[in-house]
């Protein structure tokens, strides 16, 4: 059977060369594949589930792979009230996540303690772990979470990757050299 289409090699695509910075390319890979650690602690988790389900479909932004293992996740979505009883468990799970890692504080409770100004509730998860994006709402609608994800993606897109690595290696080398100099 004869065909005029060239199979296997598309010169139109592969012939072209795209020039970019390595940082930008790596960031592009990272930001479109943010695997969330669903830290569902209260009613916000229901909205988080809705964001993952078909109607809102967080997979449109590459963040559908909810990992219940911190070692496989990139972004922790703290969805709900962080009680003091849970606080150190949240911190421990965050510590177990591999770098690079980000945190979204979803909803009023995770951001500030919300309406629970009480003896039992941590007044914002940022008191134990660094937060990148705060989402307002009680609970926030799934769109708000998607917006937070997009905001986080644009922040991830600007992060230096290679240049930071180069910088650290330079610093490390200079610190290795330093004792000789001094």
């Amino acid at each position: 059977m004869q065909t005029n289409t060239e199979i296997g090699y598309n010169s139109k695509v592969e012939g072209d060369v795209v020039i970019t910075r390595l940082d930008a390319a790596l960031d592009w890979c990272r930001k479109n594949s943010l695997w969330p650690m669903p830290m569902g602690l209260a009613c916000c988790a229901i909205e988080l589930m809705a964001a993952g389900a078909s109607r809102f479909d967080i997979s449109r932004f590459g963040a559908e792979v909810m990992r219940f293992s911190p070692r496989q996740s990139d972004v922790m979505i703290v969805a709900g009230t962080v009680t003091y009883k849970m606080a150190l468990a949240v911190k421990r799970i965050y510590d177990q996540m591999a770098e690079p890692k980000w945190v979204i504080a979803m909803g009023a409770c995770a951001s500030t303690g919300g309406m629970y100004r009480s003896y039992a509730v941590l007044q914002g998860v940022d008191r134990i772990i660094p937060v990148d994006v705060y989402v307002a709402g009680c609970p926030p609608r799934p769109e708000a979470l998607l917006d937070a994800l997009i905001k986080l993606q644009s922040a991830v897109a600007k992060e230096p990757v290679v240049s930071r690595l180069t910088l650290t290696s330079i610093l490390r080398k200079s610190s290795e050299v330093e004792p000789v100099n001094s």
Partner: protein
Amino acid sequence: MSSLELAQKLIAEFGEALSAPSEFRGETTLVLKEAERIVDVCSFGKTSLRFDFLTDLSSVDNYGEDPRFTLIYELYGLEHACHLRLKTNVGEERPELPTVTTVWRTADWHEREIYDMMGIRFRGHPDLRRILMWEGYPYFPLLKDFPLAGKPSEMPDVAFTNAAPLEGGPFVTIAGGTDTIAREPRVRIPETDALETNARLERRSDIREAHGLGPIEKKP
């Protein structure tokens, strides 16, 4: 058979130890004078009066009164569908009374919660640990003299707490207010609240008049 008849049977058995039954909105309440006899009363209620279901067991802190604590047992019989409330008091100096887990096993977690929140101990309880707060938390947070904002505490590798400043609060809501201003949650100081409310209502009345609406009635 009604709740009142069952209450009378209980009084016939225990006599002076129980108060006369009081009724409120169709519910019957008995007060037991000696907390130490709670197991006798409850087991008689379960075996002879067929109160086979302990709906709830709760406690009240009557801070500033003696005795300080009230325990409330909500009894129910699934067969006769009658409800009976038993109350008994324990003092602050020795907040302790016998457990009723021997009568209804469901009392286990209720009693643990009461111990956790108010520090009332139940003698003979099979496993009297904290249930909501963690082991090692040094306070009983539902006592009236425990600050609403909480207190700092530290339990290494388990949990910590910090006081949460109330920023001028507590912000209290008054149910049944005539308008949203009266109902909104805000600082309520009993001495000044009426004045403040009226001042706010006056400002509100000006706005209402400008819109052709009548003034709002002042509060006494």
